[in-house]
């Protein structure tokens, strides 16, 4: 029997998929190598272990974000099909999502505090902030709520994240100074918690 045929019959025999005629065709091979029966029994057990160890279905991390991001990419792609941004091109940014959430949220907590102080000093606090329509911050935790507020006067964006565990002051490096002609406060969000 040719090797290819033998491989095919043995493979299907392992899967219990041979017809009676094919089984008769394979019998001489099995008679010649009776240890194949043990090998088959071992493989059937291995297959069970394999299926137990390797689930056929595993939801990706943050599955709802998976869908929402996919929708955004597809819509952006269809809007700008001529200069379509390929998914790979977006990968650099995309990769960051694993790491930016908590640091960005950390910065947001500090910013919220600082902006709160500033708003408290304003003669017209209501004029300071405005809802940031069209923006979204995704929180992977149901217990953490997020809100985005755009401060048009200062051209800055406030991220409010509620529900995070308290952070130590030493975890944050906050400084002040001028940047691009504007005075500002700087929060180090590089650290990953």
């Amino acid at each position, binding site marked *: 029997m040719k090797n290819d045929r033998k491989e095919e019959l043995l493979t299907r025999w392992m899967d219990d998929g041979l017809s009676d005629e094919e089984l008769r065709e394979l019998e001489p091979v099995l008679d010649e190598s009776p240890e194949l029966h043990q090998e088959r029994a071992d493989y059937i057990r291995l297959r069970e272990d394999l299926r*137990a160890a390797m689930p056929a279905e595993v939801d990706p991390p943050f599955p709802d974000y998976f869908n929402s991001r996919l929708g955004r990419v597809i819509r952006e792609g269809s809007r700008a099909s001529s200069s379509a941004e390929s998914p790979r091109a977006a990968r650099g940014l995309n990769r960051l999502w694993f790491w930016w959430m908590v640091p960005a949220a950390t910065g947001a907590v500090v910013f919220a505090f600082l902006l709160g102080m500033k708003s408290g000093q304003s003669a017209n606090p209501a004029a300071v902030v405005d809802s940031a329509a069209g923006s979204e911050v995704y929180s992977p935790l149901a217990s953490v709520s997020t809100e985005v507020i755009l401060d048009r006067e200062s051209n800055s964006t406030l991220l409010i994240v509620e529900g995070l565990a308290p952070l130590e002051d030493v975890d944050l490096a906050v400084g002040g100074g001028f940047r691009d002609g504007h*005075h500002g406060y700087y929060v180090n969000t590089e650290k990953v918690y």
Partner: protein
Amino acid sequence: MNFFLHIASNLVKGPVPGDAGGEGASEEISDAELVRRCQKGDYDAFDVLVTRHRGRVYAMIQNMVKNEADSWDLAQEVFVKVWKALPKFEARARFSTWMYRITHNVVYDWMRKRKVETAGELDDNLLDRESVAAGAHATPAREARPDEALSQGELRASIEGALEKLSPEHREAILLREVQGLEYKEIADVMDCSIGTVMSRLFYARKKLQSLLTKS
């Protein structure tokens, strides 16, 4: 004084896409019907398809790539390609088989690029046909069953380790057959090869897998 704050990770996300179709209804609608709706431009139908199949796509990629972040990115890429190609999908194959085919292409493109970037670190020929003879016995001397001495966690690690030592083609054939449960013809369609090649890959991959686990 302007109040200005600079956050290094300036990652305010863009607008949320439109509402997705409810997951509750997804079980009642066939893939074929959802595909038909997608082909008319119904993104909500596509969202249901994504929700239904993302777990299998992600698991398949994760088992091939072994990196969570890359798997996530690649799974996204698969579904972007699925959406773009849906207008041309003619339903000659099952949607899931066609989707696995796209997954296969995305993963192999990634592997090829990675191979170039890492100057051959990834070796497609970890196992060639000659390294396991057709008549070789995967269990040369019957000792203890591989799983007899192993706990479930150890067994999983052992199986994952053995799978990683297979060539990508052999690993994929095993995963598609044993884990995803595809028929030989479907595997051939996904891997763009003949059924005979699928049989051969399964034959050698199984032998190698048994051999590796017996040794471990």
